[in-house]
């Protein structure tokens, strides 16, 4: 067999030269960071990928390296512009040149980066997440919660290491006014890939005491400007939105707001700002109490003075009123008196006239009565005389008695009976025949 075979090294060498001669010195490419590692010597090794339209399967992949000399400048440049660190999952625009090495194969050498592209990507991602949260109808939920007037019991999510929590704790517990705060730290990673999961975990453990705590505070030590991106995660934001307690954020960052800031009940710039906010709530409450007690005192003193004034008005009015009443009364009395005197006189007069008239009438009446009586008597006398049997006898009549009784009917008497007949003058004794 007379095939002329080249060695692997030769072939790869040829590929290398073809590439060097034909490939342009460099390209600006857009890719997604699949993996990223920085080794001890400061070189940065990445795996760049490009996903299919479905966003899941990968249709292109290449290794890439940023030599430490470049990376030393590229990293801070990127981070200060985007406030984020290069992490897997991030879309970036890179200036690369193709490298082919017989041993290490094909790789891209990254010599520059365009942060604004990533910024745009990040912003686009943020808008997308916000849209999703709004579509879920949860975006405003935490904001809608009522922040207690007295946020005394505070659940703090912060990293144990960073100074943030310590300062925050001291600022509250040693506040100049002596207000009493109760803090409890629920530690979580506040940076990098693990941040999302560990903050959510902290939220879950706070959730068990949601009827105890008044408010949740999410704070990160000052200074660590980089990598706010972990606070733009949909899952974290969704948890924050639906958390039953109001969330205050103090992630220690000046410029753009993370999604956590947007959905939180109240967004503050730094942990100290959060502490000041809480203290000011107490001051408000304190002032309100003082105001209330002042109002109470005013209202009561006003009411009491009002009553006193009314009382004094009464007493003032009382005297004249009483006097007036007395005058009226005595006036009436006098009136009545004179009236009385008059009426008494009148009455007496009337009575006396009445009496005299009565007396007169009485006399006349008596006289009349007497004369009537005399008249009556005379009549009776006359009648008596007239009816006196003797006068009748005088007119020739006689009364016949039988056994002492006057005889009226002849049949009452048999013959031969003795009868006695009385005449005007004397008797006649006789017998019936």
């Amino acid at each position, binding site marked *: 067999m007379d095939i002329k075979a080249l060695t692997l090294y030769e072939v790869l060498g040829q590929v290398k030269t073809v590439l060097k001669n034909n490939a342009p010195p460099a390209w600006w490419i857009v890719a997604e960071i699949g993996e990223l590692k920085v080794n001890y010597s400061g070189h940065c090794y990445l795996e760049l990928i490009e996903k299919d339209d479905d966003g899941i399967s990968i249709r292109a992949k290449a290794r890439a390296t940023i030599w430490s000399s470049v990376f030393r400048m590229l990293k801070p440049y990127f981070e200060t512009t985007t406030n984020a660190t290069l992490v897997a999952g991030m879309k970036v625009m890179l200036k690369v040149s193709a490298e082919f090495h017989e041993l290490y194969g094909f790789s891209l050498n990254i010599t520059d980066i365009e942060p604004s592209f990533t910024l745009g990507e990040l912003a686009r991602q943020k808008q997308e997440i916000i849209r999703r949260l709004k579509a879920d109808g949860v975006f405003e939920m935490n904001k809608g919660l009522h922040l207690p*007037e007295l946020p005394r019991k505070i659940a703090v999510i912060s990293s144990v290491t960073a100074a943030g929590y310590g300062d925050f704790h001291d600022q509250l517990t040693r506040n100049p006014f002596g207000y009493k705060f109760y803090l409890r730290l629920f530690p979580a990673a506040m940076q990098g890939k693990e941040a999302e999961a560990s903050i959510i975990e902290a939220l879950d453990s706070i959730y068990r005491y949601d009827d105890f705590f008044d408010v949740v505070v999410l704070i990160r030590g000052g200074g660590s400007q980089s990598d706010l991106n972990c606070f733009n995660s949909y899952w974290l934001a969704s948890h924050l939105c639906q958390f039953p307690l109001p969330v205050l954020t103090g992630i220690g960052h000046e410029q753009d707001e993370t999604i956590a800031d947007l959905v939180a009940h109240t967004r503050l710039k730094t942990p100290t700002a959060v502490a000041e906010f809480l203290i000011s709530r107490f001051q408000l409450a304190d002032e309100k109490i003082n105001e209330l007690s002042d109002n109470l005192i005013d*209202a009561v003193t006003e009411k009491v003075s009002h009553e006193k004034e009314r009382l004094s008005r009464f007493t003032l009015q009382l005297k004249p009123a009483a006097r007036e009443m007395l005058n009226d009364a005595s006036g009436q009395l006098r009136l009545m008196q004179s009236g009385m005197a008059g009426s008494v006189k009148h009455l007496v007069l009337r009575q006396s006239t009445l009496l005299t008239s009565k007396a007169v009438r009485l006399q006349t009446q008596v006289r009349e009565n007497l004369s009537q009586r005399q008249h009556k008597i005379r009549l009776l006398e006359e009648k008596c005389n007239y009816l006196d049997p003797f006068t009748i006898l005088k007119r020739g009549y006689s009364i016949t008695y039988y056994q002492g009784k006057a005889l009226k009917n002849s049949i009452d008497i048999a013959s031969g009976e003795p009868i006695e007949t009385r005449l005007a003058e004397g008797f006649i004794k006789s017998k019936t025949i």
Partner: protein
Amino acid sequence: MSKTNLTYSEAIAAIDEIMHQIETGELDVDELALKVKQAGELLKLCKTKLFNTEKEIEKVLKEMDNSEA
């Protein structure tokens, strides 16, 4: 209703109510004395909530430590 378990906002609401009653003159002088006393107590309660340590709260925080540990 016993005073101690009132929450801060409930106490404030109660004080407002008494204030309202006084201002609208619903209270006669006798009731006034009673209501003022109540309001005073409520105000004291609010003050304590601002400044004093409450044992129950400390207790719950301790329980959390135990369950966490």
